[in-house]
C-alpha cells in the first residue's frame, strides 16, 4: 500500500470510530451532504460486492424505435423481431435487465423485454431519464431536471414492476449500474455511491479528487467507472482519489470525424439522445475488458467509429485503422462485442462484422425500418464464433471505397479515409488518390485532400507516369490529368522519366494552366536538360502575354528552373525578358531576381555549370556545330559591360566632367553583326564624349544575327 493510501485508510478508520463513539446509530440518508466518503472498509466492501455481482446474465434482445415511432425489440439469439408496440418515446430506449425503459412525455414506462407488455410506469414530472441498468426483474433508473446547482435528480429502483425505493437529490446524477446486490450511482461529477439494492441505503461513497465520474457499468464481468474523458476499473486504487491511479484507459485526444463522445455526457442538459438524433449515426462503440495483467483492453483490440454508413475499426491507443466497412444505408445502432461488432441499419438489417477483418459473419434482413436500435452488452451468443473468418483485409480497397463514396454527409469520414490512404505504402494507393484527385464529381474538399496527398506520394511511380501520358482530347473524350499534383509527385519520387511527359503538357493548350506552376518547378527539379528549349520557348512566348493568372504565376517559376538547369547560360534569355517593357511585370521581376541570383552565385563561385551537352534554346539551328564555342544569341547589358571595360575610365570621365553635373548617362545602342549602327546618349551633352568611346570597341557577333537594341546605363561612381 502506498503512503497516500495508508493515510487514507487511517483517516477513514478514525472517522468510522468517531461515528460509533458519538452514538450515530442511524446511517445518514443516501446522498446526504454529510456522508463520509472514501471510508474503509466500506469502499472495499462496495467494490467486492459489485465485483461479485458483475457476472450477469443479460438477455440477448435489442430494443429500438421504428421510422413510424413504434418501439420494437429484436431477439438476437433467434434473429427475429420479438415484438413491436406503438409508442412516442422521447429518447432512445434503455435496456435494464428484463425491462426496456422509455419516456413518453412525462411518463417513464418499463416494457417487458420479451413481450413488450408494460411492466411499470410512473410520472417523472419535469425530470427526464439519464440512465438505467438492470439484472433480471430488477432495474435502477436515474432521472434529472435542471443542471449544476439547480439540478434535481431522482434514483428509482424497480423490482418485478413495483417501485421498491426512491431517492431524491439536489445534484445532477449520472448513469447507474446494478451489479449483484449493489446499486452504483455516480453523481455530482465526483461521487460514486454504493447503495444496498434491497433497501436503497447508501453504505459506501467514493469521492474522486481528480477526474469526473458520470458512468458506472459492467462489462465482461468487471465493473468500470468513468466519463467521456476515460474509464477505470472500480478498484481500491481509486481511494487515492484519481481514476488514473487505478487500471484505466484514456481515449486518444485526436479529434475524430463527427467528434463522437467516448461516453455521453450524463450531466449535460440532454444526456439521452432522441431516437432520430445524429447520436444513432455518429458514435464510438467499444467493449472494455481486463487483461490478466490488470490492464484495461478493448474487445477485438478495437474501438469502432460509426459514421452514418461507415464503420472504422481503430486501434484503441494509436487510432491506427484496422479495417473499414462501407454500408449501403445509414447505421442506426452498433455494439462492440467480444469478437466483432453487431450493426443495425435503417432498413432493418442486422449484420455482424468480424473484429479481425470487418468481414460480415452473418446478416439478417428482417427488422423493421428504424431510426435507433440499442444493443445489450456482453453478448457472446450473437458472435460470429460459428464462422471463422480468414479474410485478408484489403485496407486500401476499403479506404478507397470509403473515400469515393458520393454521400456528401460523409465528408468528414471520407477525409479521414483519404488521410489514412495516404499513409499506406502500397503503390496502388497512389492510383486511388489520383482517381479521387481528378474526379470532378466528388466534393471539392475531398479532391483537394487527395491531390495534396498525391503530391507527397513517394511510391506508385508507374501510376504517375501512366496518368501523365494522358492528354485532354475532345475527340477521344478524355480530360487532362491533374498535372500540378502529378508533377509534384514526380519530384517527390525523383522520377526523371516524367520530364518528357511534363514537357508535352507544357506545350499542350488542352492542359489547364492551373497546374503549370508546379509543372515548371518540377521540370527544374528533375534536372532534365531536354526541358530547357521548352521552358525557354514558353518563357519567351508568353512573357508579354500571360494568358491568365495561372500562366502568369507559372512564368514566375521559369527563371529559377532555367537557372537550375542551365546555370549561367540562362542569362541571356533572362536578360531579354527582364529588359522587355512589354513583358508582364511579374515575369520581368522574376527574371531580374534570377539574374541577381546568378550574379551572387558567380561571385561566390558556386554557379553550377550547365551540362556541356545541354540543349540550347536554338538547338535545332545549332545542331550542326555543337562543339564550337557558341556566340551569344543577343547582345546583352553584360556583354556591353565586358566590351566597354577597356574604356571604362574615359567613360566615367565623360560623366564626371560634364557641366552641369550629371550622375548617369543612358545610351541606346543598335548593334548588328558586331557593328554599332547607332549610339544615342542622354543627356545629349554627353553624346560627343561617349559615342566615340563606344564605337571604338569591337562587339561580338551574335548567333541569331539580328539587330539588337539595348539600353545601357553608365553610372557615375
Amino acid at each position, binding site marked *: 500500500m502506498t503512503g497516500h493510501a495508508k493515510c487514507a485508510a487511517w483517516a477513514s478508520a478514525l472517522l468510522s470510530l468517531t461515528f460509533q463513539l458519538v452514538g450515530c446509530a442511524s446511517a445518514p440518508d443516501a446522498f446526504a451532504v454529510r456522508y463520509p466518503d472514501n471510508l474503509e472498509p466500506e469502499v472495499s466492501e462496495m467494490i467486492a460486492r459489485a465485483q461479485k455481482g458483475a457476472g450477469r446474465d443479460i438477455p440477448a434482445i435489442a430494443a429500438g424505435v421504428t421510422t413510424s415511432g413504434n418501439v420494437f425489440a429484436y431477439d438476437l439469439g433467434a434473429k427475429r423481431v420479438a415484438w413491436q408496440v406503438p409508442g412516442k418515446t422521447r429518447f432512445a430506449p434503455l435496456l435494464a435487465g428484463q425491462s426496456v425503459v422509455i419516456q413518453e412525455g412525462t411518463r417513464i414506462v418499463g416494457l417487458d423485454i420479451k413481450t413488450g407488455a408494460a411492466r411499470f410506469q410512473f410520472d417523472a414530472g419535469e425530470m427526464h431519464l439519464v440512465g438505467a441498468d438492470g439484472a433480471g426483474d430488477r432495474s435502477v433508473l436515474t432521472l434529472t431536471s435542471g443542471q449544476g446547482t439547480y439540478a434535481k435528480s431522482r434514483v428509482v429502483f424497480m423490482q418485478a414492476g413495483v417501485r421498491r425505493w426512491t431517492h431524491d437529490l439536489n445534484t445532477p446524477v449520472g448513469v447507474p449500474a446494478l451489479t449483484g446486490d449493489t446499486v452504483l450511482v455516480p453523481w455530482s461529477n465526483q461521487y460514486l455511491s454504493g447503495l444496498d439494492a434491497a433497501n436503497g441505503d447508501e453504505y459506501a461513497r467514493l469521492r474522486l479528487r481528480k477526474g469526473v465520474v458520470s458512468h458506472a457499468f459492467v462489462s465482461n464481468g468487471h465493473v468500470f467507472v468513468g466519463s467521456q474523458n476515460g474509464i477505470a476499473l472500480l478498484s481500491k486504487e481509486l481511494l487515492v482519489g484519481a481514476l488514473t491511479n487505478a487500471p484505466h484507459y484514456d481515449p486518444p485526444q485526436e479529434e475524430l470525424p463527427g467528434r463522437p463522445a467516448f461516453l455521453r455526457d450524463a450531466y449535460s442538459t440532454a444526456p439521452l439522445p432522441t431516437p432520430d438524433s445524429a447520436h444513432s449515426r455518429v458514435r464510438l462503440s467499444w467493449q472494455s475488458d481486463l487483461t490478466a495483467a490488470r490492464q484495461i483492453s478493448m474487445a477485438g483490440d478495437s474501438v469502432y467509429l460509426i459514421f452514418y454508413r461507415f464503420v472504422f475499426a481503430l486501434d484503441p491507443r494509436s487510432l491506427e485503422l484496422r479495417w473499414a466497412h462501407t454500408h449501403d444505408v445509414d447505421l442506426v445502432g452498433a455494439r462492440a462485442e467480444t469478437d466483432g461488432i453487431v450493426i443495425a441499419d435503417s432498413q432493418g438489417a442486422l449484420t455482424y462484422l468480424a473484429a479481425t477483418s470487418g468481414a460480415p459473419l452473418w446478416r439478417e434482413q428482417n427488422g423493421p425500418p428504424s431510426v435507433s436500435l440499442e444493443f445489450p452488452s456482453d453478448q457472446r451468443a450473437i458472435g460470429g464464433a460459428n464462422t471463422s473468418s480468414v479474410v485478408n483485409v484489403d485496407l486500401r480497397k476499403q479506404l478507397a471505397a470509403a473515400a469515393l463514396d458520393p454521400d456528401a454527409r460523409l465528408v468528414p469520414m471520407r477525409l479521414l479515409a483519404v488521410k489514412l490512404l495516404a499513409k499506406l505504402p502500397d503503390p496502388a494507393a497512389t492510383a486511388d488518390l489520383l482517381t479521387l484527385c481528378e474526379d470532378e464529381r466528388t466534393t471539392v474538399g475531398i479532391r483537394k485532400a487527395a491531390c495534396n496527398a498525391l503530391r507527397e506520394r513517394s511510391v506508385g511511380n508507374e501510376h504517375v507516369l501512366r496518368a501523365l501520358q494522358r492528354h485532354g482530347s*475532345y*475527340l*477521344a473524350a478524355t480530360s487532362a490529368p491533374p498535372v500540378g499534383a502529378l508533377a509534384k509527385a514526380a519530384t517527390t519520387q525523383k522520377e526523371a522519366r516524367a520530364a518528357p511527359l511534363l514537357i508535352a503538357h507544357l506545350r*499542350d493548350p488542352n492542359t489547364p494552366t492551373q497546374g503549370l506552376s508546379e509543372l515548371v518547378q518540377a521540370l527544374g527539379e528533375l534536372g532534365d536538360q531536354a526541358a530547357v528549349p521548352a521552358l525557354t520557348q514558353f518563357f*519567351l*512566348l508568353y512573357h*508579354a*502575354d500571360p*494568358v491568365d493568372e495561372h500562366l502568369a504565376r507559372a512564368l514566375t517559376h521559369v527563371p529559377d528552373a532555367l537557372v537550375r538547369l542551365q546555370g549561367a547560360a540562362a542569362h541571356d534569355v533572362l536578360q531579354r525578358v527582364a529588359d522587355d517593357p512589354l513583358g508582364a511585370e511579374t515575369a520581368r521581376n522574376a527574371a531580374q531576381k534570377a539574374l541577381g541570383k546568378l550574379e551572387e552565385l558567380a561571385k561566390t563561385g558556386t554557379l553550377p555549370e550547365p551540362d556541356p551537352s545541354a540543349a540550347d534554346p536554338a538547338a535545332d539551328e545549332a545542331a550542326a556545330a555543337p562543339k564550337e564555342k557558341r556566340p551569344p544569341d543577343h547582345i546583352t547589358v553584360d556583354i556591353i559591360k565586358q566590351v566597354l571595360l577597356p574604356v571604362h575610365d574615359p567613360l566615367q570621365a565623360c560623366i564626371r566632367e560634364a557641366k552641369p553635373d550629371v550622375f548617369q548617362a543612358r545610351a541606346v545602342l543598335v548593334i548588328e553583326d558586331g557593328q554599332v549602327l547607332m549610339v544615342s546618349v542622354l543627356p545629349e551633352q554627353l553624346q560627343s564624349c561617349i559615342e566615340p568611346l563606344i564605337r571604338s570597341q569591337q562587339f561580338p557577333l551574335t548567333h541569331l544575327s539580328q539587330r539588337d537594341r539595348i539600353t545601357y546605363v553608365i553610372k557615375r561612381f
Partner: protein
Amino acid sequence: MAPKRCAALAFAGALALVAQPAAARGNSKAERVDKDVLAAQTLLQSQDHDEIETGIQSLGLLGTPAAVDPIIKRVRAGLPPDLLETSIVTLMALGQPQAAPLYFDLVEYRRPEIRLRAIEAIVALKPKGAEPVLQRALSDGDQKVRSAAALALGELHATSSIELLFQALDRGTFEASQAIGQALQSEQVPRLLGYLGQIPFHSLAPAFTEVLQRKDVAERDKLTVVSRLQDVGTREVKDYFADLNRASADKLPPPVHRAVLRAMQEIAD
C-alpha cells in the same frame, strides 16, 4: 557597213542605253528594299508597342519574302496578344511558306483566338505538313477551334483525315460535315447518308452540296444522295433543293439536275 547591220547595231545600242538605267533601277530597288527591311527590323527591336506595330506593318507593306523572317523571329521572342495577331495577319498577307512552322506552333498557343488565326493562316497558305496539325486541332478544347480545324481539313481536301472527321461529326463538330463532303471518297457516301435523321439536316446540307458538285464523285452516288433526300421529303429538303438549283444548277451533271428538279416537284409543300 551594210544598212541592216547598222540598224542592228543602232538597235542594240539603243537597247543598251535603255537597259542600263533599268538595271540600275533594279539594283537600287533591291537596295531600297533591304534598307526598308532593316529599318523595319530596327522598329521591331524597339521597346515601344507602337513602333513594333509600325515595324510589322511596314514589313507587310513591303510584301517580299525577306520581310517574313524578322516577323517570325519577333513573334518567337514574345509579343502582347494584339501584336501577335497583327503579326499573323501580316504573315498571312505575305503568303510565304517559311511561315508555316510558326503557324503550326501557334495552333497550340494558349489563346483560342490565336489558334484560330493560325488555322486561318494555314488555310490561306496550304503548306505541307498541315494535315497532322489540323487533325490534332480537331481535339481542341475550344469549339470554334475544332470547327475551324474541320473546315480547314476540308479546304485541304484531306482525304486521310476522313475517319477523324467522321469522329468529329459524331462528337458534335457539325462543321466536319462540309469537310467530309469535300474529302470523302465515293464509297463513303453511304456512310454520310447514314447521318440523315441523326444530326440536323442543315448541318449535313453543306456536305451534300459538296458531294453533288464534285467532279470526282460518281454520278450514281450523286443520284443516290438525291434519291435519299427525296425519301426524307421534308420542307427543309425541298428548300435545300431549291437553293441548290438556284445557286449551282450549272455545276450539277444533267441527270443529277433533273433528279433534283423531279424531287422538288414530288416533295409536298
